[in-house]
């Protein structure tokens, strides 16, 4: 029998605190690299100028005064928790929220949570949106995602018919992203969740946006679909900031799980070019 590993929740709080601040100011290297490649390849002069500004923005932000985007997002946390872990000295969710609150205050990040009806800003960016997954082992893996409102609004879940199949999925994704056009701050990263059920597809789609940019799905069928969708999007003409060009999306990531024989759930989660996510293994 494996032994229980105790983890003080203050470790989680500090990890969240550091991830949130790093995410806000430092673009992940994989995305930065893709943007540099896109700048080289872009054929539209305006599109190229936009990408140049986007690259400059990454540099200005890395100096630590101005966050990458004024919308420093809702704090979305994916946690893979080893089943042999026992959190001690407090409540896990409270610790996550404390880490978020401290980070957003100390690092001058925008507080963006509000009451849905009165629209009153809650002033602390709480609560964090936490998704936990129990996995084997005694480690904890945390993915922190600062999710902005502009790209999140250009997301959806659609229950397709099984007969829609592969081509129906591709068409739905491509049509949706083209319709969203300039709104979600292209060049975007498109997360697609196929299967599971209604809410599972949405979680898969968001998790897909956290994958390292350029990594393909190991299932060759899905890798091919990712490539086909990406080509269609970059042929749409939308381009960087929607001002025209061949860089509408930097990547398309698909995650898939089995679904019910009567359903074909499809979720599309759009991430902007400042797709701020960080991860740590504890």
């Amino acid at each position, binding site marked *: 029998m494996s032994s229980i590993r105790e983890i003080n929740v203050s470790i989680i709080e500090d990890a969240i605190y550091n991830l949130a601040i790093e995410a806000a100011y430092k673009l992940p290297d994989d995305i930065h690299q893709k943007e540099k490649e896109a700048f080289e390849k872009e054929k539209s002069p305006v599109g190229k100028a936009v990408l140049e500004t*986007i690259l400059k*923005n990454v540099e200005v932000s890395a100096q630590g005064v101005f966050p990458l985007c004024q919308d420093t997002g809702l704090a979305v946390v994916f946690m893979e928790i080893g089943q042999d872990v026992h959190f001690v000295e407090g409540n896990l969710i409270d610790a996550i929220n404390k880490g978020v609150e401290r980070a957003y205050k100390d690092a*001058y990040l925008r507080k963006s949570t509000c009451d849905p009806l009165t629209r009153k800003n809650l002033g602390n960016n709480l609560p964090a949106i936490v998704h936990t997954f129990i996995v084997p082992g005694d480690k904890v893996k945390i993915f922190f995602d600062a999710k902005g409102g502009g790209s999140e609004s250009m997301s959806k879940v659609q229950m397709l018919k099984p007969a829609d199949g592969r081509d129906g999925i591709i068409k739905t994704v491509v049509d949706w992203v083209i319709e969203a056009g300039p709104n979600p701050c292209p060049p975007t990263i498109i997360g697609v969740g196929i299967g599971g059920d209604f809410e599972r597809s949405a979680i898969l789609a968001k998790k897909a946006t956290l994958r390292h940019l350029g990594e393909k799905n190991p299932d060759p069928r899905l890798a091919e679909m990712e490539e086909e969708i990406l080509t269609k999007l970059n042929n749409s003409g939308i381009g960087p900031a929607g*001002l*025209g060009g*061949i860089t509408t999306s930097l990547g398309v990531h698909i995650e898939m799980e089995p679904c019910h024989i009567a359903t074909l759930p499809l979720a599309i989660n759009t991430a902007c070019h400042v797709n701020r996510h960080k991860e740590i293994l504890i």
Partner: protein
Amino acid sequence: MAEYKLKTPLTDEDIIKLKAGDKVYLSGVVYTGRDAAHMRMIESLKQGGELPFDPKGQVIYYVGPSPARPGYPIGSAGPTTSYRMNPFAPILIEKGLKGMIGKGKMSQEVKDACVKYKAVYFASIGGAAAVVGSAIKKAEVIAYDDLGPEAVRKLEVEDMPVFVCYDAYGNDLYELAKKEWANKL
């Protein structure tokens, strides 16, 4: 596509020379406002009240900046998505507003108001917020302080780069650019 340097407040003469696709370097005063501020402004007008500033010739920037660090006038300040201001923009344009700065598509009613009253919708680069924020010289909250990031601010900008997206002739840069660059991969 032409390039212009313009100083606010803008006049009809400024507006009629602008065409979708032109690049404009804006200087002078620009007011900020987004969802909650617009709801309040329009509610105030309905009640027969005043706006926090006279919109004649002015430009509104759809932005909710991140907090200013000590010694800086403002934090990061890129555009927010404009379509949420669709119901409000035509009312302010009718009151003399000459420009909006944001990102993303707006409605046909906004395009029509730009034609009818000679106004322009400028597109800015979403997510280039550190670049814009670091170029803002002065920022002062002039109304609705309780709204935090959504308060109305008076900004002083110098050569803020924006693109003419909807001009006073009914053109739409997003549509034009998309057509021009489709199937060019």
